[in-house]
Structure formats: C-alpha cells, structure tokens
C-alpha cells in the first residue's frame, strides 16, 4: 500500500449489494465509508417479507449483515447522507458528503422510542409504501441500523415535546446539515433501483381502484412487521381476498413506455408472492398473468414447479389488456387473451397485484452526471465491458454493483458486490495504478 | 472382610499376594473374615459403629442376609471398599436380572433336570431378593476396586496405600494401553466366535474379528488376558468414571468401527448380553430399567 495514497474506499448505497461490497473490502483491512441517503441501511431488501426461491424471511437473513456492518471496526456508516461531489482520480478521490441533519444526536440516541410516543404528528409511512403511518420523529423499521431516530423536518411542527421526552437530551431541533470531506482510493456505486410508476398504465386501474395494488405494497401487507401486522386484507374494505390476480410485465419489456428491457426479477417475485398469498389463505386462488416465466436462476425453475404443483398457482399466458372494477363489490375483472387457448377471458378477482418493472433510482441521472460516470441508454450505470469489466465503470477507480448496473436479484447483487469489492481492493493495494 | 453372594475369588486373589502376606498381615487386626478367622456375624453386629478402620465387601446382594451384612459393614467401617466387580457392578450374578426371579427358581429348583420333585428351599435359608441392585444403591462406598478378581498386584497396591494412609492412585488407562498387539487398522470383515480360526497372536484381536471389549474396560489388570491369547471380557468394568455404561460404549464402538450393516452384526453376535455387559449388567442403562420394572412389580 502506497504511503500517500488513501487506503479507504467509498461505497454509495447501503442496500444488500453495497453492504456486501463494504464488508468484503473491510474484511481485507481497508477502511470503508458507506454512504446511504435513507436514515438506515438495508435498502429494498429490508422491506421485503420473504425472498425467492428459498422463502427465507428477508429481514432475518439481512439483519445479521446489518449488525456486522454496524460493528465492523473498519466501516463508517454515514446514513441520511448523500455524496455531494467527487474529484480526483483512481487511487485518490476527494469526496464531499452532505450529511443531512436528522435533528437527533447519533452518538447519544439509543433508539428507546420515548420521543415517538410524545410526537403528535402522524404522516404516511414511506417504508410501508404509505399504507401505514409513522410519527414525524421515527425509525424506518425496527432493525434500523443505526438504531437512532430521525426527525422528518418537513412534517415536524416544532412543538418540542420530543425534546422534553428524551431523557438523554439527544434531540436538537436546531441541528444543521454538515459536510464531511475525505479521500478514498476507490468508489463503488451501489445505489439500487426503484419501481416503475405504474400509474402510467391507467387501463390497469392502479391509483383509481382501491383493490389494485402493486407488488411492494403487497409485500408490506404480508409482512408481520407491516402496517396490517401480516394480515393480507383489501385496503378498500378490510376483507380477506380469496381470489388474487398477479399482472406481469408492467413497466418492463415495453418499448412504447421507454422500458424495452426485461426487469429480470418480477417473474420470480410474483411466483413468490403467489405462494405467500396461498400460505396466508389456504382456501384462496391465485392466478398469474404473464408473457414468459423467467425462472432462470439456481433453484428458480424448481420453485416455479413447486408453485404450480404443490401450491396450485394458476398461470395464464397473456398480457392483461385492462382491469375493470365492480363498483358494489370492489372486485376487479381482468380482460386478458389466454394465448394458449386463444380465447379472450374475463376473470374476476378480489385483489389485483401488479408487478412493476425495475428502473434506475431517483437521482441516478444527477449523481452520474455530477460524478461524470457514463450511463447506459436505460439510465443505469454503464459497465465497462460484459466480459472484461462487468463491475467496472468507464471511469477508472469507480465500480458498480447490484441494480445500479441493471435489474438483478439478491444472489446476483451479492456476487456483484463481492466482485466490485475485489476490483476496488486491487486499486487500493496498488495505490491507484 | 465380608462376603455376600459371591465366589470368594476376590479374597483368594488377596491371599494370592503370597509372600507379601508376611508384610501385610502383621499390620492388620482382622475383626471379621468368615472362613479365615473365627468371628461370627453376631460379633460384627456387636462392634461399635465406625470402629473398624477398613472394610472390604465382596459379592452381590442377592438375599436379605446379604443386605443386612452390607448395611452392617457400612455402619461399622470407617472406610468401606467395594471389592471386586460383583460388588461394584453386580458382576456375573447380575446377569440373573435378565430373567424373572421365578424363572430362575424354576430352572434351579422346581424344574431342575437332575432333581425330581424339586422345591425351593425355605428352611434355614435367607429370603431371596427378586432383583440384584448394585451395592452402591443401598449404601455409599468410599472406594471401588473392581476386577473379577482384582489382581493380586492391584490388591497389594491398594492395601499398601491404605496402610500408609495415602490415597490409592490408579492409572486410568484402558486394557488396550497394556496390550502388546499391533494395530494395523484393517476393517473387520466378519465377526468371529472365539473358537473360529486361528488368531494371529501379534495383531489386535478386534481387528481380526474377535470381539474384544478391552477398549471399554479399565486396564487395572495390565492386559493379562489379551497378552495371553484371549479377548478381553471386560471384567474390570469401564474406565473412570466407572458407573458409565460399559456395554453401550462397547456396542457403539463396534457399530462405528466395523463396516458391517447392523443386521449382520446382530446376526453374528450371538450373545450380546454376555459379551458387552457380562460384568456390568446391573449398572447398565438397560439393566437399571429392568431393576425399576421389578421394583414396580412389587408395588
């Protein structure tokens, strides 16, 4: 390791890919700055209930990793923070990180929750996809790391009751944003993804019909730590849906909507959701409307078989044309061409779950342009070369992993995280050359 | 020195210290030793409690008289030694627990093939207990000295230490430690009866297929039998801690060691009880279940 060159790395994004990369770099003895714009690391995986193809509880397999990151002596977690600017080159980047004021002193807060008890303001909880509520002073989820509260200043009414309630005097409503500057030898972009905005498909009824929801909302409903404590109910009337329809390829494989590519994960997450729906209601009926079933990974095809044979999930090959609502019942009717029988069918369901495709996260364009990192046509970070540099970007010393490079499931994101970490540590050990 | 139901072999072994008797005997004041000195049971009962320094108790408690003797010895002796495998573990007589007492009495008396009109004697004979419980279930012992019999050398060591007032130091090694045979690590192909074939005198007997339980046996004998051409039969009971189940240990060892399927082992081992728990049936897991069953019958 070169004396003058920094032997630390920056990982942008605290989802499962970023966490994997951070741990792999730190385990080699290098220091890692892990920057995450949300109040806690964990990313989308923290919101998921169960993962495919093993039906592992997502939080259960993720939390040990969050713990490991939190107590790793080589990792400094900077949550509620964003990368402001990056200058320099491989081996020596000068990074400026803007640390948003959370109005709570991280070193003092123990996550006891006394403040939230006192807070009079309730707002929609974005972690629960706005289905549930949280207070204006909150932790996003119980295993949040770091386990400290954050004040949502936009909705805070400055009443000060939380300040009084806090026995450790951890709350400072006058806190200001700060900037942190440091040097790193390598950078890994692991900024994840967001779901396609399916209000863009008015014919499918999302946004107008109460009982049309999307996959992540479904995920929060079936999650025991979610807004309904794991009870899968219709948000319109609280009834338990017996018949559920899953609509695939919405916001993916759609040239007209500017998302021609395959989102890679939706087939599998829908099969998983379908199985979960039947586990929650063994009398239920689940139908999946698809174009192709892309169960390509290790154990995926076998999981698909199990969903069909053991659970009795029904699969209809056809892209749904429209969803109509029965005003009295709130039930939905799907119009779809069953291409295997060549008949147009009208099928009624109590609940419709749309599986949105995956798109680059909010702020990706801004960040890429600010850092001068080349993007692909789809808006993701462009990998240097499919075979020679699948986790390298066009900028030396900057690497990419996880969904920031393109839609991926958890195993592929984890492998990519480790791969990017390997590349980063080569740069660090060679001092950037 | 008390004898319950036994063969007296342990005491014979003691006498077998031979010329060393000349050193030992004068240091002893023998207060009770039926067959050797002329004290009666009444004399023993008459002594004050804890007035005898050392007592050796040989044999199993088979009759009510044995039980009375045991309790009396415990009361009168300061240090009570459980002498020999019968006293420690139940020994060969302990195997009788495997059958119902009435069955035993049938075979011995009522349906004895060489007696006609056989009856169970009841006059001038102490009542028989329905099951043999290990002696230490009745009283606490201070020292256990197993063996069938304990070798004269072992007895001399123990007695010498006692006379000096020192603790008896016994090596914890199993019989294998003293065995001179070579281990080649070849798998057991077939389980042999002791009379099958010709055993190679230089190779481990177990490896050749003869079931030797030396690895599960305390080697206080210093490998007497195995170095003389015979398999170890386990007469010293298990190595310390000595109340573990010797038979279970030997069986699990054989099951692991011999690459034979369980059905074959079961078929080839003709007498598992006599092989694995020959001397320790009464203190084995299965043996204690038997004892509990018998006692439950009484209630």
């Amino acid at each position, binding site marked *: 390791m070169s004396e003058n060159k920094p032997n630390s790395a920056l990982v942008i994004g605290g989802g499962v890919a970023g966490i994997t990369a951070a741990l792999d770099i730190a385990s080699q003895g290098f220091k890692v700055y892990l920057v995450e714009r949300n109040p806690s690391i964990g990313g989308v995986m923290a919101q998921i209930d169960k993962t495919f193809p093993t039906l592992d509880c997502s939080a259960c397999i993720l939390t040990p990793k969050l713990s490991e990151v939190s107590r790793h002596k080589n990792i400094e977690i900077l949550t509620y923070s964003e990368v402001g600017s990056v200058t320099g080159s491989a081996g020596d980047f000068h990074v400026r990180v803007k640390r948003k004021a959370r109005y709570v002193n991280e070193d003092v807060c123990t996550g006891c929750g006394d403040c939230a008890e006192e807070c009079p303001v309730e707002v929609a909880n974005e972690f629960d996809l706005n289905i549930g509520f949280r207070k204006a002073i909150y932790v996003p989820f119980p295993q949040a790391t770091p386990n400290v509260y954050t004040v949502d200043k936009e909705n805070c009414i400055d009443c000060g009751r939380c300040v009084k309630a806090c026995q450790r005097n951890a709350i400072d409503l006058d806190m200001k944003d700060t900037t942190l500057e440091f040097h790193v030898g390598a950078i890994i972009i692991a900024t994840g993804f967001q779901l396609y905005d399916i209000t863009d498909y008015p014919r499918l009824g999302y946004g107008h019909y109460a009982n049309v929801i999307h996959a992540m909302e479904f995920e929060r409903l079936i999650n025991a730590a979610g807004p309904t404590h794991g009870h899968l109910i219709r948000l319109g009337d609280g009834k338990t849906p017996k018949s559920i329809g899953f609509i695939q390829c919405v916001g993916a494989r759609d040239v007209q909507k500017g998302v021609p590519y395959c989102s890679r994960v939706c087939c599998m997450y829908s099969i998983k959701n379908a199985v979960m729906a039947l586990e929650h209601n063994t009398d239920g009926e689940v139908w999946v409307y698809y174009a192709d079933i892309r*169960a*390509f990974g290790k154990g995926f095809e*076998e999981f698909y078989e199990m969903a069909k044979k053991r659970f009795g999930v029904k699969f209809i090959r056809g892209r749904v044309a429209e969803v109509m609502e029965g005003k009295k019942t709130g039930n939905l009717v799907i119009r779809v061409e069953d291409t295997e029988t060549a008949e147009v069918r009208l099928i009624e369901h109590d609940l419709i779950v749309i599986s949105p495709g995956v798109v680059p996260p909010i702020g990706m364009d801004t960040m890429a342009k600010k850092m001068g990192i080349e993007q692909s046509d789809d808006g993701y970070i462009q990998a240097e070369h499919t075979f020679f540099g699948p986790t390298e970007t066009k900028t030396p010393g900057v690497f990419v992993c996880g969904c920031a490079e393109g839609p991926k499931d958890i195993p592929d994101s984890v*492998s990519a995280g480790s791969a990017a970490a390997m590349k980063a540590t080569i740069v660090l050990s060679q001092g950037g050359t | 020195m008390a004898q319950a139901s036994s063969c007296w072999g342990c005491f014979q072994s003691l006498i077998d210290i031979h010329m060393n008797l000349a050193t030992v005997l004068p240091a002893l004041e023998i207060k009770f030793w039926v067959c050797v000195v002329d004290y009666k049971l009444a004399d023993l009962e008459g002594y004050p409690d804890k007035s005898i320094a050392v007592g050796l108790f040989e044999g199993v408690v088979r009759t009510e008289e044995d039980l009375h003797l045991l309790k009396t010895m415990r009361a009168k002796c300061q240090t009570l030694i459980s002498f020999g495998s019968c006293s420690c573990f139940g020994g060969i007589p302990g195997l009788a627990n495997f059958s119902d007492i009435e069955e035993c009495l049938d075979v011995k008396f009522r349906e004895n093939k060489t007696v006609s009109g056989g009856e169970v004697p009841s006059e001038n004979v102490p009542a028989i207990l329905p099951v043999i419980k290990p002696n*230490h279930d009745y009283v606490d012992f201070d020292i256990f000295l197993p063996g069938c019999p304990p070798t004269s050398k072992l007895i001399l060591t123990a007695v010498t230490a006692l006379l000096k007032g020192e603790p008896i130091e016994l090596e914890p090694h199993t019989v294998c430690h003293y065995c001179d045979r070579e281990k080649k690590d070849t798998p057991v192909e077939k389980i042999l009866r002791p009379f099958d074939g010709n055993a190679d005198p230089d190779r481990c007997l177990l490896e050749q297929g003869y079931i030797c339980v030396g690895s*599960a046996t305390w080697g206080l004998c210093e490998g007497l039998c195995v170095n003389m051409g015979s398999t170890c039969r386990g007469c010293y009971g298990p190595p310390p801690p000595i109340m573990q189940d010797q038979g279970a240990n030997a069986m*699990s060892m054989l099951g692991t060691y011999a690459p034979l399927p369980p059905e074959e082992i079961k078929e080839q081992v003709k007498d598992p009880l006599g092989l694995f728990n020959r001397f320790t049936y009464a203190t084995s897991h299965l043996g204690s279940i038997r004892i509990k069953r018998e006692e439950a019958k009484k209630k």
Partner: protein
Amino acid sequence: MSDTKEEPRIGVFVCHCGHNIAGVVDVVSVAEMARDLPNVVFSTDEMFMCSDAGQVLIKEKVKEHNLNRVVVASCSPRMHEPTFRRVVEEVDVNRYLFDQVNLREHVSWCHTREPVKATEKAKDLVRMSVARAAKLENLPIKTVNVLPKTMVVGGGIAGLRSSLDIAERGFDVVLVEKDTQLGGNVAKWTHLFPSDESGAQVIGPLIAAVRKHKRIKIHLNSKVSDFDGYIGNFEVTIKNLSSEKETKVNIGTVIVSTGFEAFKPVGYYSYTKSPNIITLAELQEMPPAQMLIRPSDGKPVKKMVFIGCVGSREPGKIGHEHCSRHCCSATAKAAADLRDDVDESLVLYQDIRTYGKGHEEFHRLARQKHVIYSKFPTDAHPNVEVAADGDIRIRWFDVLAGSELEFHPDLVVLASAMIPPDDMAETAKMFSLTRSGDGFFNPEHIKLAPLTTHTAGVMIAGAAQAAKNASEAVIDASGAAAKAVGLMAQGEVEIESTVSHVISDLCSSCHTCVTACPYGAIIMDEEQTPPVAFVQEAKCKGCGTCAAACPSSAIVMYHSTDEQILTMVEAYLCTTPEPEGGGSA
C-alpha cells in the same frame, strides 16, 4: 480449558421478534418464569434482540448486574449467534458463556396454532438453557494462520479471472487445469453473446495475462489427487495426468471453478441419428464460415430450427430439472446473427428467458428479422424424425397458432442443458462439497453467500455453482477472489472452540474415532507410545460422533460436555432439583 470457578450469574433475554415469536408465545410470561430459575439474576423481554436496541440492552444489563452468563431466547442460533457472541465479548464475557434458545424456528413457527402449548415448550427450553448456562465454561479463542496462496481448480473463464484478480491483489496462485490448455468452454466457442466477440477474443487476453503473471503457477493436464488440512493450511497434491508426477503444495484458500459440460442429448429429438442435428454448443464451436454448411453433404443451410430446453426443465428427472439459464439468450443471438444468410429460421420454445442486459433487445432484433418464434406445450414436445434419405421432419403443436405444424430443416440446433462435468462427484468428495438438486455445488447460502461453501476456505465460482453465462461467471470469479483475499489479507482466521478433545490417558488407541469422524479431523499421534488419538481442532466441526463412539469415554466435547447436556435433560424432566443420597462413584 480454563475453569470458571465463579458463581454463575445468568441474564435471560426473551425476544418478541416482532410478531414472529410473540404472536404465538407469551414471551412476557416466559421472561417472568425465568426470573425464578436457579442462578438467574436478571430476566426481561424485548422487541427485537438483534437490533441495536437489543444489543445495547444486553451490554447495559451485563454491566449493571455483573452477569457472567447470557441466555438469549430468540431465533435460531444460525441466524444471530455470531451477533450475540460479539455483543457479550464487548462487555468481557467469553463468547462460550452465551447460549441461545430457539423460540422461533423451534416453537412459534412450527406450533403456530397452539399458543398455550407453545408457551409451555418455550418455558421448558429456557429452563433447560439456563441449567446449561450454569455449567458452561470459558473456552479460548483460537486462530489459525492463513497461507497467502490460493489454489484455483479449473482454468476456464472463471478460474482465469479469479487467478488474475488474486495475483493482482498481491497473493500467489496455483492454477490447476485438467485439460492440456486453458480457456475451458469459452475458448471453444466462436460465437458469444451479447457482444459480437468470439470466444478466442474474450479468453485470449485473459490467458495471456495469466501466463505472464509472476504470481500465477499453472499446472496443465493435471488434477488435484489429494486434499488435506484445514482452512488456511491446506495440503494439496497435484498430479500430472500423463506423467503421473506429483507436486505437493501448501495453500491457504481454494476456489473451485470447474465449470460445466454441454449435455449430449442422446435420445432427444433424434440426436445422433443425423449429422445435421447438432447442439447449440456444437454450433458455437464451429468456425463462422462453417456454421451454415450442412454437416452431411456440405450444402448451404437454408432452413434452420433451434429447439430450446433440451434436457432442461424436466421435473422428476434428476439432474435435468434446472433451467440452463444461458440458452434462450444464446439462441436469440445466434438466430439473429445467422438469419441474414438463411431463408427460414425458427425457434421452438417453452418460455423465452432473455432476461439479461441487452438480451431482450436481441430477442426483439431476431423477431424483427423474422426469426419465427413458435411455442410448444410443456407436455407435448416437438417430434423429430430422420428419414432413410436423411431428410429431417419436425412436427409440433404451436400453442399460439393452435395448430400442428411441420418443418423440414437443413439444420436442427438443440439448445441442450448445462450439466456438471462428469467428474463432479469426484471433485465434490475431494473438497467435501455438497451438491444441490441441479448437480452443481451448494453455496453456503443461496441468497447471501452464493460464493462460499460449508467447507471453510473453499469457494465456488462460475458454472460450478450453477448454470450461468460467461459474464456472470466472471462476476462470480471476482467475487470468490474477494472472499479468498478476505481470508488471506488478515493473515489469520478464528476457528470455533466447540471442538472435541481426546484425554490421552484414557485413549485405547482403538481408532474408532478416527473411523467415525466424518471430517477426517482425528489422527493418531505417533509420537506417543502407544499412539493416541489427536483431534485437529481446525478441522473439527464439533459434531460429537467421536465422543459418542469412543468406548473409553476418552473424548470430551467442549461446550457440549456430558454434564452440560445431561443437566438440560434433568432440567426438563425435573422441574425442581431433588437432592439424592447414596450411590455415586
């Protein structure tokens, strides 16, 4: 083993785990019951023990109540034992004085409909654990050093990538390849996707770089013939397959990247009945000029058909149930590329799995070029017949058209499965790796640890782990390299102290434990007379088989001694301890 003579002071922490446990088990009453157990000084319940709040709680209470043993009743130890062990260590409690009770997988998740009985069971388990905790002892934390050298088994694209990454990172590599040249399957292909590069163009630079690198030692035409030792200190014997010469090497870590074999689908679609029926792999191995020439008579191919899922996705057929992942995309690219020079090109499929970056795009391109995609039903595969004159007739039911179709192609390309190489079982045994249903190696955890295995120090990468394409194999390779370097960079690694130990005085040298140990961790110490058994702690997994088999009770299981286990049994059977008189040895 140091003895812990102090009086046990046990703290019990019962976790709600949100609703996961508390939804079924009355955790509050469990914590209350624990308060009265012998040696318990503090007992409480908490929402999420694994969260920061829970961990801080443990630390605070250890200090406040001077606890020297901690029991956490929560999820499976497989989940959070490492977490809690670290927590107690931070407040100076030896990690082996911590015990975890599984109230989730063992209680709330399997007895969901019987909350009352589940709570009773939870109480029983906590009582047992508290009894055990009182008997636990300090164990030393041991480390072994890790040699700064990796062995990479398999010189295909994944093996080459791993080797280079590790070498560039500054560690030595021994690369073993059974073939006479490097490059694996990719080297054989003239045709890749999604780019237009040939296999040689992709693998060439990698091979050159590997050959040039000073830190990489290559053994071609060789296989690993013996593998012994333990993490950080493996003893390997590499055997040259022609000369039979053996080389012994000591290495710290291993990456198994043994790749795959392209399935030869004999019995499917009249494969071998005509030279014009080939596999996609065979097509990809042909020089470009040859691809559109009929193997039978050298005439140009004007009509071609690709058939997907050959030997893949067959439920119930062991080793052929998995999706081979790369073929739909490879087929789409091949069909699109070759379309210009043929009159008709068909792709018969079950599903089109062009999932990756750029893949859907050339699926679309193929269609735009009028490659005809025709779906056949899962339960009625196409029928291929070869007539006496060599004419190939293929008939199938097109699901979308709803009719039987017939085609007479010049060339049939079967997208056959990616299966493990024929010596996979041998490799698995050599490195103590397990295999999943698809025949490839099992990763340590299919989601969060796809590149490590249950054999500490051995990683897997590329197709050895599961069917995948070359780009994915490269990512795996770099990832596995990161795992290997992670072990080597620190120079040493901790090993578990929950291992067995032979009391040499009692050992009968009977070799039973040596035979019994599934991990080959016990050897005979020849320096003693007679030789006694000796446990190599780094290899021991603490399974207890040796202790159970030992006829002389010479083996003690640290952290699972007879006393520690029997006390749990007694705690379960007797709710109050009864003192007994008489009769102990």
